[in-house]
Structure formats: structure tokens, C-alpha cells
């Protein structure tokens, strides 16, 4: 076995030498190409074995001599076998296209030499390993040669400067370099470089990329459909022409998008990052770059861990953007303000560009602290206790652009000391109470001065309407109607008869109002120096007597069945905006027909049918209401028919009541029949259509 193997090695080495010298006279059969492609795999085996040999040799003293010699012999044989196999495969591979470079030649010959050397090592091991010095020299020499061969091979696949070249982080300043070339680097250049220009395509330099490969140019600016690169990239993965080939790292969705859009936008190699138009695909992508549009900071960043130390719920410090060394600082919650926190920040004096101390309890002493932040651009001291003493110290902040001093007791003279700062662009001085002359003087300065809103004394505003205190418009027995107003010294005037209240003649509201039965309360508010408010109409429902049961004789529309019969006597009204509210019962095809039974024969003064009015949703008042009463165990007797006044135009929606006087004793039960509008009137957008009737409650008193 050993013999066969050693003969095989010898034979193959001879063949190797032959092919290497007469390579232009040899042609490799196509089936051999498979052998060639095993090269990248097989080549690693001799490397491993050679290192193994080294370790084994150092264990020499620990191993019995005969065993050592035996193992050494076998090891060398196997090493030689795989070395020659690998070299042979490599040689076959070198016949494939695309490897026409000097590196290849060097790799080839050194590889052949290595293989022969290793065979010699085996064959003449008795000579080479006769003494320790010779042994060491032979082992290190073969490993050294192997490294050299390996490196040359690596250069072919990974590119010349893969190992020693500078890491490719050249400050890319064109769209091509930054976005496109970086993708080519990652996904194309392993096969399309100066050493290994598959398809005659070499992407190593821009000039070569412009030339293209054997199929012509890579792309046509602006024409995505006829750009060869895109065609190949978008082919089906299974297609032989798909690029990158199956099994190689594929282009991601985003990379494809980048390539496509770069070509779509003209495939311009020169476009600078700073020239990207906002409508370009690359406009948002470039955010992560440091192009000229984005301010570049030269100071060093503070590590995240460092920042962590300064952060608290009441003082947050964060970079202004991802990857930026510049910091913005915000203080929150004045009662938790700790002056020491601000002092500690002087460790970050270089990095802080934005500082917000608004509403914090700081006074003029703060300026000396702030002056340490020499790169500060924006400072907010709104609503603090400063008066401006010492403000001139801010002059050491040479980049200060925005200064917010609104709502402070700022002294005019002090302020003037910083206005000469050349960097200052905007100053915010709302509520600083400078007199008109001072304001005029400030307006003359070159920067933007913002005085903000100044109330116009001549402008008379309309007052807001009184606010109803009651939470519900249903009034129990003794409940009263109560109003208030959000401003001081406001007079509330009201009417109870449905008429529009007058701002000077109507009753003045002094104390909560008692309401006897269902009724409208109209209110408005007046105050000196203000226009009277809008009139607000409220409708109140009086509920003194509760019916024991209620029952619908005809079902409500299936879409609006509320909570069933209970809905009518649960004391809850529906939401006048949301008719899906379970407090509403809706009727369109059927009449509303409800029967109400009382605990015992009761005196009823009146009842109020509470219904919705929402004209644009076709929800109208009932056309007529019939009341039937049951007294003394007799059947229901018709008591009254009321024709309800109909609307004549679209109205604002709301809940209304239909109040009916009953004034009868010993009522056992009541029946109410109300019919929805059969045909909407001519003025209505849905004229001729059926109207809706929505009922939420019937109140008795």
C-alpha cells in the first residue's frame, strides 16, 4: 500500500513537472475540469498536515524512536500525496479562462516546486531527518514555502492587497464610490478583478468598469432596461447567466435598488454626495454619510457607557443623530433640578451643542456654567430666573446660533452685550417686556429677533360659552342645573322658554336652577371687554317616576336594537354622535310602540320622549305621537294624539325631547306610539326617502 502510494506520488510529480514546462503544448480533456475544481478544497489538506508535522516533530523526545520514525514516514507520505494531488488539480484549473496573470504563473511554479520538495522529503527522509538541525531546516523550509504558495494563491482569489493592503475605507465622496462600488466590492469583484477577470470583465478600477466585459458595457445611464448588469442580476437564480452565480452571495433587495436607481439617475460616476438632489433615491440614504450638507464635528465622541452616567429621567443626553459625536442635553421637571448635574456636564464641554434649561430654577449664575460648552449652538433659557447678568460669558460659545430667552426678566442692557456675537442668528425674546424704543433698537440688528405674540388691545374677542356642570342632562327629583365659566367676572344670562337670551335683558344666573319638567335652558356669557359668547341650548329631562317594566310591541331595526326593552327606562341617554351606542333604538320600517307598566297605579303629570335629531343622517323627529293609558284594570284607552312640528331645514344634531302633559291619577300602564317620517321633505338631500326615528329613553314625572 505504502509502496503504491509512493509510486503514485512519484508518477504524478513527474507528470506535474512535464505539464508545467510544456503547458502550451498540452490540452486538458474537458472531463478533467472537475479535477481542477477540487483544487480549492484539496489544497487545505497539505497545509493542515504540514502544521501537524511540525507539532509532531516537537513531540519527538516523548515518543519511542521506532514509533516516531514509522509515524514520520507515514505522515510525510500522506503529506506528499495530498500536496501533489493539490498541485495537479491546480495545474488543471489554471487552464481555465480568466487567470491570465503573473500571480498565477508564480503560484503555479512555486506550487510545483513545493510538491516535488515534499516528495523529496519523504523519499530521502533518512537524509533530511538525520540530525535535529537538518530536520528543523527541512520542516521550516517546507512550511515557509507552503505559506508563500498559499499567499500567492490567495492573491488570485481575494485580490492582490487583500492581506496587506489598506482597509478599503477611503473617504468616499461620490455616490458611485459610497453606494455602488461598495456593492461591487462585496458581490462582484471576487470573480471580476485584475487577476481573475471572468467574462473578460475587470472591475478593479473605474476605468475598467467603464469598459465592461466581453458582453460590452455594464450599464447605460438612465436606461435600466438595457443595462447588462441589471439584466443579469434580475435573471432567475436558476438561469445559467444569473449574476452573481448561484451559490455565491446574492445581491440583496436594497443593493439591487441602489444599482437600479443609480443607473436610472444616469449612472454618473462624478456625482458628489454633497450634490445629491432631494428627489434622488440617494437623498435619504446619504443621511448616514458625512457629506457637506451635514455639519461635521471634529471633536471626539463620548462612549455610550460614559453617557449613561450622566443620563437620568430628569436630564437626558443623547447624540443628535446616530454616529454623531455632538450631544443635545435636555433638563426636565424643575422640582427635580440638581445644579450639580449641570456642573458635571463640564466633562462633556466639547461635545454639547444643544442645551435646554427651560423652566429650570436657574439664575444668572448659570452663564458661567454654560460658557464652558464652547461648541454650543442652541441654548434655551425660556421661563428661567435669569436677568442677564453675566450673559457676556456666552461669548466663549463661538458657534452659538439660537438663543431662547422668552418669558424671563431679562435686562435690556445685559442682552445688548451678546448681540454682537457674529455667530448668533436667532434670538427669542417673547415676554421680555422691552419697551417699544428698545424693541425698535433690537429690530435693527442683523439677526432674527422674535418678539412673538403681543395681544392686540383693539381686538375684541368673543367669550366662550358658559360650561354646564351637570354631567347628565337627566335630572332626578331634586337635582338642579348648574353653570360656571372658566374666566373671572363673567355674567351668565339665561332663558327657560326657548327664546334667545339677551346679553343685557335676560335673567342673570346666580344660583343653580330648578327645572320642573322637560325644558330648554339657553345660556350665554358676557364680560366687560369681550363680545358676548355664543348662545348654548341645553335640554334637560326630568325623571321623577320610574316605570317598572317597558316593552316594545314592534321590534326596532335589527341594526339598532340597543339593550332591548331595558334601553327605554335605564335612565341613560344615547351619544348624539354615535348611533351604534347601545342606548339608542332605531326605527324606520316599524313604528315605535312601547308599553310602560308602573309598580302601582300612579299619578303621572307628564312624560318626555327623548329622541335624536340628526338631519343629515336622515334621523328626524317623529311625525306624530299617540298616547294610550290604562286605568282601573280596563284595556288601553286612547288619550291623546300629538302632531309633532316638523323641521324645515338641516339642523345641528342633538338629543331633543317631546314633552306631553298627562295629569292623570291611578295610571297602571302607558302606551306610546310614535311614527317615523315616511317621506323626507323636499328641502332634504334625501327627499322622498324614508326617515329614521331614534329613541333612547322615556321619562315620567
Amino acid at each position, binding site marked *: 500500500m505504502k509502496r503504491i502510494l509512493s509510486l503514485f506520488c512519484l508518477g504524478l510529480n513527474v507528470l506535474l513537472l512535464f505539464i508545467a514546462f510544456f503547458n502550451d503544448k498540452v490540452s486538458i480533456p474537458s472531463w478533467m475540469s472537475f479535477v481542477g475544481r477540487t483544487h480549492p478544497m484539496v489544497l487545505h489538506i497539505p497545509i493542515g498536515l504540514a502544521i501537524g508535522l511540525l507539532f509532531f516533530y516537537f513531540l519527538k523526545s516523548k515518543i519511542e524512536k521506532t514509533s516516531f520514525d514509522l509515524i514520520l514516514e507515514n505522515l510525510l507520505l500522506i503529506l506528499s500525496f495530498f500536496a501533489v494531488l493539490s498541485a495537479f488539480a491546480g495545474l488543471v484549473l489554471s487552464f481555465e479562462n480568466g487567470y491570465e496573470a503573473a500571480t498565477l504563473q508564480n503560484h503555479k511554479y512555486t506550487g510545483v516546486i513545493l510538491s516535488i520538495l515534499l516528495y523529496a522529503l519523504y523519499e530521502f527522509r533518512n537524509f533530511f531527518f538525520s540530525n535535529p538541525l537538518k530536520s528543523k531546516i527541512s520542516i521550516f523550509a517546507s512550511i515557509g514555502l507552503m505559506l508563500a504558495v498559499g499567499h500567492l494563491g490567495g492573491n488570485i482569489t481575494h485580490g492582490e492587497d487583500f492581506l496587506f493592503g489598506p482597509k478599503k475605507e477611503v473617504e468616499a465622496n461620490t455616490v458611485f464610490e459610497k453606494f455602488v462600488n461598495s456593492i461591487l466590492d462585496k458581490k462582484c469583484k471576487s470573480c471580476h478583478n485584475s487577476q481573475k477577470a471572468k467574462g473578460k470583465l475587470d472591475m478593479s478600477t473605474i476605468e475598467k468598469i467603464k469598459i465592461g466585459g466581453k458582453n460590452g458595457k455594464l450599464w447605460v445611464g438612465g436606461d435600466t432596461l438595457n443595462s447588462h448588469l441589471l439584466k443579469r442580476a434580475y435573471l432567475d437564480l436558476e438561469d445559467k447567466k444569473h449574476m452573481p452565480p448561484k*451559490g455565491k*452571495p446574492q445581491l440583496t433587495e*436594497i443593493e439591487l435598488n441602489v444599482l437600479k436607481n443609480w443607473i436610472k439617475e444616469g449612472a454618473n460616476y462624478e456625482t458628489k454626495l454633497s450634490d445629491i*438632489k*432631494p*428627489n434622488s433615491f440617494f*437623498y*435619504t440614504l*446619504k*443621511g*448616514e454619510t458625512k457629506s457637506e450638507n*451635514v455639519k461635521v464635528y471634529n471633536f471626539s465622541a463620548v462612549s455610550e457607557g460614559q453617557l449613561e452616567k450622566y443620563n437620568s*429621567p430628569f436630564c*437626558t443626553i*443623547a*447624540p*443628535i*443623530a*446616530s454616529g*454623531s459625536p455632538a450631544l443635545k442635553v435636555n433638563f*426636565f*421637571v*424643575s422640582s427635580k433640578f440638581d445644579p450639580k448635574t449641570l456642573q458635571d456636564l463640564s466633562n462633556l464641554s466639547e461635545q454639547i451643542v444643544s442645551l435646554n434649561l*427651560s*423652566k429650570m430654577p436657574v439664575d444668572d449664575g448659570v452663564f458661567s456654567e454654560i460658557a464652558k460648552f464652547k461648541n454650543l449652538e*442652541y441654548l*434655551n433659557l*425660556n*421661563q428661567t430666573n435669569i436677568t442677564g447678568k453675566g450673559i457676556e460669558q456666552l461669548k466663549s460659545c463661538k458657534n452659538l446660533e*439660537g*438663543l*431662547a430667552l*422668552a*418669558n424671563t426678566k431679562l435686562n435690556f442692557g445685559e442682552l445688548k452685550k451678546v448681540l454682537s456675537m457674529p455667530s448668533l442668528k436667532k434670538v*427669542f425674546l*417673547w*415676554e421680555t417686556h422691552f419697551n417699544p424704543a428698545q424693541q425698535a433698537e433690537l429690530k435693527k440688528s442683523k439677526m432674527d429677533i*422674535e*418678539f*412673538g*405674540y403681543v*395681544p392686540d388691545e383693539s*381686538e375684541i*374677542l368673543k*367669550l*366662550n360659552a358658559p360650561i354646564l356642570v351637570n354631567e347628565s342632562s337627566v335630572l332626578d327629583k331634586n337635582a338642579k342645573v348648574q353653570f360656571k365659566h*372658566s*374666566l373671572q367676572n363673567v355674567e351668565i344670562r339665561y332663558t327657560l322658554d326657548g327664546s334667545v337670551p339677551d346679553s343685557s335683558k335676560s335673567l342673570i344666573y346666580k344660583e343653580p336652577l330648578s327645572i320642573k319638567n322637560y325644558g330648554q335652558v339657553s345660556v350665554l356669557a358676557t364680560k366687560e371687554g369681550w363680545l358676548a359668547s355664543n348662545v348654548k341650548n341645553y335640554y334637560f329631562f326630568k325623571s321623577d317616576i320610574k316605570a317598572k317594566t317597558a316593552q316594545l310591541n314592534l321590534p326596532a331595526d335589527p341594526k339598532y336594537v340597543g339593550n332591548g326593552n331595558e334601553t327605554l327606562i335605564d335612565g341613560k341617554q344615547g351619544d348624539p*354622535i*354615535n348611533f351604534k351606542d347601545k342606548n339608542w333604538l332605531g326605527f324606520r320600517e316599524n313604528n315605535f310602540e312601547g308599553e310602560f307598566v308602573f309598580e302601582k297605579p300612579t299619578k303621572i303629570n307628564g312624560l318626555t320622549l327623548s329622541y335624536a335629531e340628526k*338631519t*343629515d343622517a336622515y334621523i328626524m323627529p317623529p311625525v306624530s305621537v299617540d298616547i294610550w293609558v290604562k286605568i282601573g284594570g280596563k284595556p288601553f284607552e286612547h288619550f291623546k294624539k300629538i302632531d309633532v312640528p316638523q323641521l324645515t*331645514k*338641516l*339642523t*345641528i344634531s342633538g338629543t331633543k325631547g317631546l314633552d306631553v302633559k298627562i295629569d292623570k291619577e291611578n295610571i297602571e300602564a302607558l302606551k306610546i306610539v310614535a311614527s317615523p317620517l315616511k317621506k323626507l321633505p*323636499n*328641502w*332634504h*338631500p334625501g327627499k322622498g326617502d324614508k326617515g329614521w326615528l331614534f329613541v333612547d329613553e322615556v321619562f315620567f314625572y
Partner: protein
Amino acid sequence: MENEFLKNRLNVNRRHFLGKAAVGLGSMALGSMMMPDLFKTGDLASSFPLGLPHFAPKAKRVIYLFQNGAPSQLESFDYKPMLNKLAGQDLPESIRNGQRLTGMTSGQSNFPMVGSYFKFNQHGKSGAWISELFPNIAKIADDICIVKTMNTEAINHDPALTFLQTGAQVGNRPSMGAWMSYGLGSENQNLPAFCVLLSRGRGNGQGVYSKLWTNGFLDSTHQGVVFSSGEDPILYLNNPEGTDKTSRRRMLDKLAELNHLGFDQNADPEVEAKIKQYEMAYRMQTAVPELTDLSKEPDHIIKMYGPDCLVPGTYAANALLARKLSESGVRFVQLYHQGWDQHGNLTGEMPLQAEDVDRASAALVTDLKQRGLLDETLVIWGGEFGRTNYSQGKFGVDNYGRDHHPRAYSIWMAGGGIKGGTVYGETDELGYNIIKDPVHIHDFHATVMHCMGLNHEAMTYKHLGRRYRLTDIAGKVIPGLLA
């Protein structure tokens, strides 16, 4: 969130895990040898850390003044005198061009065009046309950018609102505010990063639902916190009687211990979210009273925002509160003002709606500006779609209604990163179709994110096997809106 659950399941049985891993690791190693990129996500998203803008932002915070129900662009910011001339004439089919209709006008036999009942005037240096219903917004014309060419895909309120707020018509995605909270984190840890304030106008209203401020598949810490419209914007902030600060603190510490025990057992990230929320609620006990305190503000803010600003639950009060929240570092404040759905009685209802919001909206912008905060706060005003140029139902020059119109509508933006004093985009003479510079909802989202320093394509969240974005798979930044 799925990752945490997976991690836990793996931890549950270590031997089982290691057994599996031996085989798994081997094949992973093989895989990585064959495909070096196997374990490299390699996409844009992974190159940005969470919690920081991707690039230096113009805006740090957003206040979104949502006009819920869809205010008519034809009575606010898109002046179309031609409609007054052609009033009553049928809208030509060539203009409508197959636009689907809502169930409310699909039965209508003709579509009588109708012009604005309200007068328009030019304002500001840009000469923007603004209707007389918004006299105060007209005064800040030089600070705002009116976008006349917003367009959406939805034609009914709920899908349109959901689309605008979450980037999808189906309501399971995170809301804009939740995305911002996720992507940029909280500036002020004493307040929620995403706050929601509700108010109701006097016009025909449409509901708002919690899905509009949902965290979707993001952690629940990113959910919008709805403030109460009562006297106390945040309920139950005070310690109950008999509990002082120390015992509250001790109670929370013990509770956190128990929660950590629970977390160790089930690794449910919601437990950690809960712990964080309790802690924030504790800090809010100090932060909120300071926030709502008006005593340090000059009296004339009442005149500035209008006297309603003292009445809790009104739009004006919410606008003032929004300024205070934003000033205190709340990343995203979302207002909803209901009542803008004028299918009928537009001439009656719209003045009331406008009266509610006009002064306070303008005051908010001015107030931010005078405090030096407008440059870093993005204010957005607008609804979910527009309204038709023809009348719904019976036509009258002074009494008409308008149906939903998704093809073109107007909003305005102001502040951080937005080019103030401009009008962007053009609609045709009849105000029906866009003729120049459309801004789709996805584009709007991309632009807002851009102002916030976020690359809308890079901020993703992996859920159910795919990466989601606020802009879904579309959207481009609109440079014409940017300063």
C-alpha cells in the same frame, strides 16, 4: 417580540436546546461556509441603532392637529372660483373619470358642482388663498406650507383615518406616533412619548378608535396615551388617601420584584413594559402637575389661544396642552378634533368647526415660534381626505353638502424642516384632480419621517416573517416641502 418568546422557550430546556444545537450548529457552520452572507442581515435597517435619528433631524417632535371627518378643502385652502361660475352644472364624466362613489351619493342622478359659499383672500408673502373661515391661520400664512395635493386610496372615514395614521387601511399596524416612539425613543422619560388628546366640535362627527393610536406589533410602551378631556388630563395621578410618597415607592419596588420573578418564568416582554409603565406613572406624579400649571404663563395666552383654552376637553385647551407636552419633550402629540363630516348643511356647520380650531391652531404655531421651538417641532393640520366639488343631495348656493373625495385635498404643515410660506401642488380648475405634484399618504409619511431624521426605508420592524415600515413598500420624500 417573537424573539423574546423564542429565547424563553429555548431557555426552558437547556439540555434539549443543546442537543438540538449540536446538529444545528454543525449545519449552520456548513451553511456559513457555503454562503458567507448567511448570518449577515446586510440591510439598511441593521446599520442604525434604535432610539436615535439616522441623520441630524430638523424636527425633534411632531404635533399632529388631526381634523377628523375630513374638512372641505374647497372652503379652506383650495380656492376654485370656477366652481362658483359653474354652480349647478353637472360634473362632466371626463373629470370624474371613473372615480368610485360612496354609498351616500352613488344613487344620485346628477352631480351639481358648487363653489365655496365663503370668500377667499390672499395672504402672506406667498399669496396663499385662504378662506374667510380661517382668519387666524391666514395670519400665519408665512409660517405654513399648504399642500393642496394630498391624495389617498380610501374613500370612507375609518379606512382613510387608519391609512393616514398607520400606513395601511387595515387596522393592525403601529400608528405614526408609535413608530416615532419606537424609532426615536422618548426625550422626556417622565411623560409618555406618544400622547393623544381628543375633542369634539359641533359639526357632524365621526368616531375615533384606539386602533388609531395603537402600538400594533411594537411593544405596548409605544402605544398612544389618551388624556382625559376632563379637569384632570391624567386620572388617578394622586396617591390615594393614606398613602404617602415613600410607601408608594416601596409598593412599586416590591411590585417590580414580583414582576421580575414573573418575567424570569415566562419572559413575556409585556411584563417588562408594565414595569416601565409603573415607573413612568410614578414619575408622572411629579411631572404632570408642573406641566399643567398655567401660573407661570402670561394672562394673554388666553387671548392668544382663545378663552376656550381654559375649558378642558376643548380643541383650544388641547392645543395649549399640546404645546406644553411638546415643549416638555413628548415626541408625538396627536390631537383629534371631531365634527368635520359635512355631507349636508356645510354652510351651517363649517363656520362652527372653523371657529373651534382657527385661533388655537394659529396660536400653537405662533407660541412655538416665539419660544424658539418651531424650528424643531413639526406641526401638521389636516383631515383624512377631501370633499367632492359637487353637492351631495339637493343643491343650493348657500346650502349644500359635500361627499368624500380621496383624489385631492389640502393640509398644512409648519415648523421643523418644512418650507414655510409656500403652497405645494396644484389641482385642476374644478378642484377634482391633481395636475401637478401629487403627495400620496405614503409620501407624506416618508417626508414626515425625513424631517424627524429617519430614513423611512430603514426603519423597519420584523413581524410574522416580514419587515414592516410605516410607508409599507412605497413612499418617497417630497423635496418641495422641505426647507
